[in-house]
């Protein structure tokens, strides 16, 4: 698994099996959050009473129901991308040798990729599994997070209004490229250090 992100690795042969991150239903990080949630819910119940407790619950349950179909769509897109996307295309455009252009392409992809919270991560993981470069994947996620139009229009604009969001977007424009290049620099630095050079 580790070797998959090294910058100087051989390109994957097209017939190489797709390695997907294994997903179990529960793990330590979820368990830690579960504890935090139970404690918070208990404190809210004691401090604010049952009405407030239920109000939060119903609000969040409706949000959950709203998010669910999006997550299903994203998981399906990820599964289809994994089998349909030609590896040589991914390697050429956003692979380890794709340079700054690969990061710019990933940034643009992040801007146009629709979806709400969480949907980006399975898709990014699918691209990495078929040979996308770590730096490009990070630029993609950063771009979607900070510049994705869906998030800006649906979630951010109603809260902050046009002017703040406009300037925030301008300030954030170079960020995916900074993050992608920085990630590549860290990988290069850590491999060189790991190789004893």
């Amino acid at each position: 698994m580790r070797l998959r992100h090294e910058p100087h690795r051989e390109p994957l042969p097209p017939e190489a099996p797709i390695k997907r991150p294994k997903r179990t239903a529960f793990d330590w990080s979820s368990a830690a959050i579960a504890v935090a949630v139970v404690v918070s819910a208990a404190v809210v119940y004691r401090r604010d009473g049952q009405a407030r407790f239920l109000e939060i619950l119903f609000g969040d349950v409706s949000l959950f129901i709203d998010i669910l179909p999006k997550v299903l769509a994203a998981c399906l897109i990820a599964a289809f991308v994994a089998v349909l996307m030609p590896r040589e295309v991914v390697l050429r455009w956003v692979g380890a040798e794709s340079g700054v252009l690969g990061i710019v392409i990933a940034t643009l992809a992040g801007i146009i990729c629709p979806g709400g919270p969480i949907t980006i991560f399975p898709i990014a993981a699918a691209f990495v599994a078929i040979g996308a470069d770590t730096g490009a994947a990070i630029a993609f996620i950063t771009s979607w997070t900070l510049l994705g139009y869906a998030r800006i229009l649906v979630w951010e604009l109603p809260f902050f209004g046009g002017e703040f969001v406009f300037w925030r977007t301008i300030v954030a424009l170079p960020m995916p490229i900074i993050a992608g290049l920085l990630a590549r620099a860290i990988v290069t630095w850590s491999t060189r250090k790991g190789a004893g050079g």
Partner: protein
Amino acid sequence: MMIYMVDGLLWVIAICLGLIAASRSRTLFRDSVREGAMDCLRLIPRIMLGVIGSGYIAALLPQDVVGHWFGADSGVTGIFIAALGGFLTPGGPVIGFSIGAAALKGGAGAPQVLAYTVAWALFAVQRLMIWEIPVMPPRLVWLRVLASLPLPFIAAAGAMLLGKP
């Protein structure tokens, strides 16, 4: 209205890809649908915990106090506190934006609020733990967080240089 269009687009893409897969081979289509649906099923407990749980964590955050920590005259310290606040704010689609907007109305500085929302969007710790680590290779997640660490500060510096928003 906008939200339905965005959701719709996601499904349009999924259906188009599905049609392409089905035209290649029926088995390919069936296997991919099963794979995608299983992934989604495995994520459901986490999403439930993430979405339903974040409401309770957010309810405990002293929202009106948060704004005072990064007021307009809080300077670089305020930016650091704002970035840390973004890290600690639960993930989910709205909480960071609503706290940021409330802070801005309550007199917080724009660069500080910018640092807060950027930090929250990039590395809210609860979102990292519950959504990102289970779905992506952990190495990729940590590398991403490391590479994103300077961004809230660059955002605040950019806002200060521009004198906007």
